[in-house]
């Protein structure tokens, strides 16, 4: 045991100095889901399957818009799986903290460019 201890004097510590050093997540990491509003048909399947009611839909059909509650989301990926037109993608973003509830609601609106409200960075 002593040898192992002394070996560590020469090794670099195993800690990552977050936030200065970050380890990128692996491909396929279940981060924040995003909706591609150009493909969405408003079928409401994602809304019905979400286990924690994190998806809120406003409107119906081809005019439906989304509010995604990050504070309720489990990041389970069930919405991505069930969407029939592959409009939902799980990105690899995991730094999702915010100082108030308003920053945890992401809106996906239908505009020409199908832009989304960016996450407020502190």
């Amino acid at each position, binding site marked *: 045991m002593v040898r192992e201890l002394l070996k*560590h004097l020469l090794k670099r510590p195993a800690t990552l100095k977050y936030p200065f050093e970050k380890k990128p997540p692996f491909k396929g990491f279940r981060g924040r889901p995003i909706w591609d509003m150009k493909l969405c048909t408003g079928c409401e399947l994602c809304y019905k399957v979400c286990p924690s009611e994190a998806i809120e839909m406003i409107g119906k059909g081809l005019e439906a818009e989304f509010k995604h509650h990050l504070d309720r989301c489990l990041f389970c990926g069930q919405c991505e799986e069930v969407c029939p037109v592959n409009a939902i993608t799980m990105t690899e973003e995991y730094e999702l903290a915010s100082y108030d509830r308003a920053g945890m609601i992401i809106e996906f609106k239908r505009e020409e460019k199908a832009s989304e409200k960016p996450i407020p960075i502190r």
Partner: protein
Amino acid sequence: MVPEGIVAFLEILLFPGFLFFIALAFFYEWVDRKFFAKLQNRYGPLYTGPSGLLQPFADFIKLLSKEDITPKAADKFMFSCAPIFMLSFPLLALFLVPVTGLTAPISFEGDLIFLMFLFTLIAVTIFIAGWSSVNRFSTVGGVRAAFQMLGYEIPMTLVMVGPAIAARTLSISQIVGWQSHNAAWFIWLQPIGFAIFVLCLLAELEFIPFDIPEAETEIVAGWSTEFSGRKLALIRLGKDVELVLAASLITSLFLGGPNSSLSILAIGFFLLKTTLAVVLLTTLRALFARFRVDQMIGGAWKYLLPLAILQVILVQLGLGR
């Protein structure tokens, strides 16, 4: 001409006095934490000050600003006195250790015995601190501290006497003088004594493997459970000063102390040797698991005490002078 009284007063206050020892206490806590972390493959304090040097100081300041609660059932007088004693006894003992030369600010024949007395008082203070905060965990912690004292007290006293017998004096300053005069350090003259001394110091400082009175996973924080705010700040500072005391005792009694009478060299040697002693104590801390109190006392009486007696006999027979 500055009157001598003022010089002495400044010496006691600043250097080598309270401020110096307190600064040293913070520094050695940093060394301890950083080295402990390095052995465990992680960083220690990192961001406060260069490489985290100011972290112990920052912790102290933070604790001073927190709320200081005294439990309703506690014995108020003893509860308030215990942290003050925890800080003042080691600080007083530190004046007996030579730092800037071959004599300490306070040195008289028999100050080694005075030092042992102060160690006992510290242990009694811990017990009083645990007893006066009327809380099950504190009681168990205080009782365990008293138990532990039963274990390490006698071997430690015996091995401290080893160098005293060899140097024919009961004054720490004279022991240091003997070592530098004869160019021989007691670490190789009395190695058994050195090993036992280090182990007993681990028990006295409540370091793993002997941090039984304060076992976090068993009894919350042991005897210091109920202390918070300023009192806890003083207790923690007292523990750090105890670490300085332990390291400087190892230096003075076994490693030759400040080896010259030149001020600058003396301080340099002193700091170097005490830092090495702290590193040794930290390595031992990282190496072991915690003992149970009955195993500790059993081990102390079955192994440490006979070895200590053996060491003293060896010294009397001439081996180690």
